[in-house]
């Protein structure tokens, strides 16, 4: 099963489109107020990322990427949101969360980070085709936006979500690279999952023990 001949341009465009949707969902995480919507947004981001991985697997005819996509769906798309909802229910955290910055400054900071990402990838990808440059810029933007979510949202759940969306960004970058071996892709996916689990324990542990950051 392989890609149709001459479908290179359309395949790349579709991969980009999926990457763009992941970026927009990162922006949504910056301002989303309702907790259940935040978890749903994160789940949607994971599913779109899995779709991008599967699509790239089909285009590049690479088993590694298929497996990565499947793992992403299973862990980030299904298991992590279920775990988050369980924790939210158990801790009886309230339904809405506030932002530290206003909506507009947050968005402006997000756009500035996207511009920064574009500037950063410029020297590294001078010789690569334009689409590879866009791929890298998208992935780096998602990483930076995940970090921004972590520091500008007060709720613990959102800090966890921000941390693992950084992992989403890294996966997006890996998925875009051509010819990645199976071991590297699998280990990356498992590392991100491990990071998610550790951060969940860490942040919720702080919250429980110290009465931590405000909800």
């Amino acid at each position, binding site marked *: 099963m392989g890609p149709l001949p001459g479908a290179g341009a359309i395949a790349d465009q579709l991969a980009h489109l999926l990457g763009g949707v992941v970026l927009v969902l990162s922006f949504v995480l910056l301002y989303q107020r309702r907790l259940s919507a935040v978890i749903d947004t994160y789940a949607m981001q994971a599913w779109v990322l899995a779709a991008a991985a599967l699509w790239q697997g089909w285009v590049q005819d690479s088993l590694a990427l298929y497996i990565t996509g499947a793992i992403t769906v299973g862990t980030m798309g299904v298991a992590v949101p279920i775990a988050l909802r369980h924790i939210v229910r158990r801790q009886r955290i309230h339904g809405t969360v506030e932002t530290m910055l206003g909506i*507009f400054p947050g968005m402006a900071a997000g756009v500035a980070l996207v511009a920064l990402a574009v500037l950063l990838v*410029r020297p590294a990808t001078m010789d690569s085709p334009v689409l590879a440059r866009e791929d890298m810029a998208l992935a780096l933007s998602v990483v930076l936006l995940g970090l921004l979510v972590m520091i500008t949202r007060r709720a613990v759940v959102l800090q966890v979500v921000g941390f693992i969306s950084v992992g989403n960004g890294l996966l997006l970058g890996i998925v875009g690279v051509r010819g990645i071996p199976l071991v590297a892709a699998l280990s990356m996916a498992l590392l991100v999952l491990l990071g998610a689990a550790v951060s969940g324990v860490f942040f919720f542990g702080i919250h429980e023990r110290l009465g931590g950051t405000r909800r």
Partner: protein
Amino acid sequence: MSRRIAAAGSVGLCGLGCLFALAYLLSGPGSITFTLPFGLPGTPIVLALDGLSGFFLLLLMAVGLATSAAVLDDSGNCEATAPFFPALLGAMVLTLLAGDVFVLALGLALMSLAAFALVLTCHEEPEVREAALLYIGMAILGTVCLVLAGAQLASSAGWDWRFAAIRAHPPEGWRAGLVLALALVGAGSKAGLAPLHVWLPPAHAAAPAPVAALMSGAMTKVALYVLVRLLFDLCGPAQPGWWGVPLLMLGAGGAVLGALRANTEGDIKAALACSTVGNMGLIVVGLGLALAARGADLSTLASLALGGALLHALAHGLFKSLLFLGAGAVQHAAGSRRLDRLGGLIQCMPVTTACVLAGAASLAALPPSPGFAGVWTLFQAVLGGPRIGGFGLQMLLVLVAGLMALAIALGAAAAVRLVGVAFLGRPRLPRAAAAEEAGRPMRMALIGLASVSTLVGVFPGAVLVLVGPALRRLLTTDLTNRAGLLSVVPQNNLRGYSAIGIAVLLGLSAALVVLLVRQRATPGHRVGPAWDCGFRAPPAWLPFGDPLTQYGGASFAQPLRRLLGTALLAASERVDTPAPGEVRPAHITVEMRDPAERGLFQPVAAVRARLSAFAEIIQALTLHRALALMFAALVLFLAVVALMEPF
């Protein structure tokens, strides 16, 4: 009587000046220089006329003609200071015709003094005095900065003050940067460029309406002329492209700030003055883009940007003076210029309202007005800007484009607010209902400005042809293949804006509508009370209804004040609700501060206060202390002399 003589004389001279400038620009004999036989010892006075000064001269004469006609009218209270009006016009002409730095400085100083005298016309009111003091302080600062800039330029040319000599020896390196900074502070403060614009709204609101029209319409443009002359002409064509960046940033910021303040002011003239600040910001964005494009050798883009800026300057001069004269007519007829004391003036002042509507359409940048033509050209230049290159500049241009669009939309809201609250609706006070139509000379001035405005709007290409000599002089490329009588295009082989086409299309659509309505609908109408979902008849002591049941200036601005004002203008509302059981009404107080005032002027004023407090200590010394001070100064001087002696 002296007022009539002064005004009649001004009208005649301005008319002649207009024709002369038009003839000069169309026939294009190139730059003319004449040297007068007197002047400073060793340096005779040089006067020069070229494409750039000719264009600004045309603008000045047109605005001067209309405002002089308005001074003829009885409505202004300009009796005491009327002789300063021709003095102001003469000083501005002198500035435009300057051929060396000395004449330029002289012209600017005379202009500031004459305007100061005119602003003080109603000097009995304390806020007028405060506004005049702030104005003269800023004017002195501006003139000093410009003189320093001129001195720096002359020193690079071997202390030759003439423009021709300065052009031959353009400054370089840090000297050029110094000239840029001084020109921005000096000419920018006179033109109302943010953040040095804080003096403009109080001064233009305090001056009588024809004076305010002249100041807003023409004086700010003269300052703009000085800026263009210094940065584009005297510093030479080889300056780096980054010179455009501070102008782009300051212009975009000022455009948004001015337009937002125009929405929140409760006084018509202050709101119009804030809108002047906004439009100056837009023009400066065009200048900045022209500098950046010139630095990257894209002279077609640079000529489009500079042409757009000059077109918008002309359009703004015309429609802003029209609006100020209308505000003056309203102030005389209805007794107030505050929005919460007017209303329903369309019934008693129909001609004034129709002319003000034409001006307001230009303020809102609606096609086919001249405001739209200027804004369209500026946008085309900004949209073509990314060709200059450099990711930082491209991101800046995107932000500038967004801010320009925000400023224009805020300007449209301000225009609707001013016209809707002051002229439409129900009168808020009986005095407003008793207003009478403006006098003959004022009506002539208003109608004249409105018709010229409409003409410029429908044929913007003609104005760009008039700008041609200036563009050829400064940038060596003009808009000959791109601006014609019928349309303006940004580049060859592209489609552009055809104002006359849009006007014809609108006319045909209107004819179609009238035809459909005549053919199909029932003619005639009935008159009854307003529905308003069941409006009770007003009590007998409020013949025009309660003014609180109608939207006023402050309430119209409330969404914008809440959404943008809290961030930009530090707007805060305080509601004073009576406790249960009290029968007094609730009060709402709204406070706003201009960020430039908070961030720039107040710290400077604080430093000045501390310095003067320190100086007062020295003033109030006892005899003993004064003697001690003199003794200490003498000992210090002797010690310095002793130390400087060789051993």
